[in-house]
């Protein structure tokens, strides 16, 4: 421990130098993070970006994905809005967004098909997330896209095809966020 004391002293001096009289703000740390190699990063990274970055090898089709419906309570919401499962409807709602009773589903609302894969892989099935293989996640993704009339029953969904699928509401979103909208603390 003794050898680290000069580091801590340097840190304190740095913090004092950086802080205004009103506020002392930590600017630097002791540098103790452990490097991650690319294999570790790949094993831990669950995120799929809209351009397809992060999609794993594998593929699936709607007809195989439909088999999951029988065993997955969340997929009961595939059935038409109002008659299906306990949670948000997953299918239908086309043309309702500007009405008094908008129905926001994968088909009517979600802007990116990659999000469907990302969400199923990270959070579904609800009682046992992480238990599906990549092929199974692709298949359930394909099933939801097919039920919403976005792809054909036999269409193969994989890392190449999924980012190219254009969702019906892709242009329905606008992003008003500007970093300059944030006011820094006085």
């Amino acid at each position: 421990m003794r050898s680290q004391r000069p580091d801590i002293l340097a840190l304190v001096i740095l913090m004092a130098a950086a802080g205004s009289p009103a506020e002392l703000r930590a600017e630097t740390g002791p540098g103790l993070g452990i490097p991650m190699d690319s294999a570790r990063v790949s094993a831990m990274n669950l995120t799929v970006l809209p351009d397809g970055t992060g999609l794993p090898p594998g593929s699936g089709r709607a007809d195989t994905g439909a088999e999951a419906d029988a065993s997955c309570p969340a997929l009961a919401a595939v059935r038409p809005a109002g008659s299906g499962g306990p949670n948000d409807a997953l299918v239908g709602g086309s043309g309702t967004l500007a009405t008094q009773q908008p129905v926001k589903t994968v088909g009517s609302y979600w802007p990116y098909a990659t999000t469907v894969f990302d969400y199923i892989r990270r959070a579904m099935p609800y009682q046992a997330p992480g238990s599906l293989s990549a092929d199974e996640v692709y298949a359930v993704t394909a099933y939801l896209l097919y039920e919403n009339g976005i792809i054909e029953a036999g269409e193969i969904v994989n890392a190449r095809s999924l980012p190219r699928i254009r969702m019906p509401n892709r242009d329905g979103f606008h992003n008003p966020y500007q970093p300059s909208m944030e006011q820094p603390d006085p």
Partner: protein
Amino acid sequence: MSRGDAMLPVAGNGLLDRRLFLKGGMAGIAALSFGRASAASGARPEWARAPGSPMSGYGGRSPFEAHVQRTAIVSQPGTAGSGASRTPLEHLEGTITPNGLMFERHHSGVPAIDPERHRLMIHGRVQRPLEFSMDVLERYPRVTRLHFLECSGNSGAMAVSPQAPDQSCGALHGLVSACEFTGVPLSVLLDEAGLDAGAAWVVAEGDDSARLVRSVPLAKALDDALVVMYQNGERLRPENGYPIRLFLPGFEGNMSVKWLRRLYVTDQPAMSKDETSRYSDLQPDGSARLFTFSMAVKSVITSPSPGLDLAGPGLYEISGLAWSGSGAIRQVEVSADGGASWAPAHLESPVLPRHLTRFRAPWDWNGGPAMLMSRALDDGGAVQPGRSEWLASHGGRSFYHYNAIQAWAIDEDGRSRNAYA
């Protein structure tokens, strides 16, 4: 200011000068209004006739306060932990929410994380992908901040219910809490990893079984974001993100990812389920706004409010909370006549940016019907809108980011009821 001056109304239906309760003005009035003598008997109550309880390792509340609980606890059908519980705002004072009463919003229950096995990972557009054990994070410099945290769905029933929901202040507006948060500035950790060119977003992921994920603008991550370990001086509770959570002052609560496990630096937002299909704001024309991060200026009267009945005509203190995700509260006005006239409320110091501010105003209730309202203004000049004004600009099809003026209707029996005004 003489007591006589202070008792003169400054706005309609009995609102008095906000300075009444200051400078000792209240003392004489209290004696007039509440001057009932205590019991004449000198007999000791039972708690003073024998030694009390011993010390305890971790204190609890008086059993007489056990009724103060999180409220309106609702989970998605078929689940126990995918939903929300709310802070009972009307039973609390000051500005700090006790840890056991901070609101909850979980998407797949509360994970039981072993801190020895938990890691925080930073990777993506960085020069050095890094991971941190919880022991290592202990060695990093920390800062402490007072801030509110509000779910963007807070008060949403007021946006979409045809009739004003007959609920308490906490049930309606209790998806907001405020605490003292202590943690490591995220900028310190990102600096150690070294940002690459093109870094623009930080995609934050939790270690719950939903692996909840939100994309945070890099500017916010470098400005005032914290990796929080302590809340109100003690370790985070499991339901608040133990052992670490992200905290983004002023931003919608869902982005302050609990049980933080991974920070993925990217050139684009992940467009995750929660930031596209869920926490986006549907507009009247059917389009939707993404990334409406900052919580708007807002206030609510916590007392009187439904469940806190007035005992009869006389002097009362109207008290409530005001906050803004963009900065500090500059002014709160209160009305007792449904917005026909307004009086400035007293703001309790310190008034801090992105923290709850407690406001107070004295009120001489004449026993007749009244409509209590509060209206906040922040230091950026934003004013809390009326409900019809909010609905006109948001369309009433989306319930996120509802910040309109709240009205409590007081009847002649002294009961408060939620009202659309």
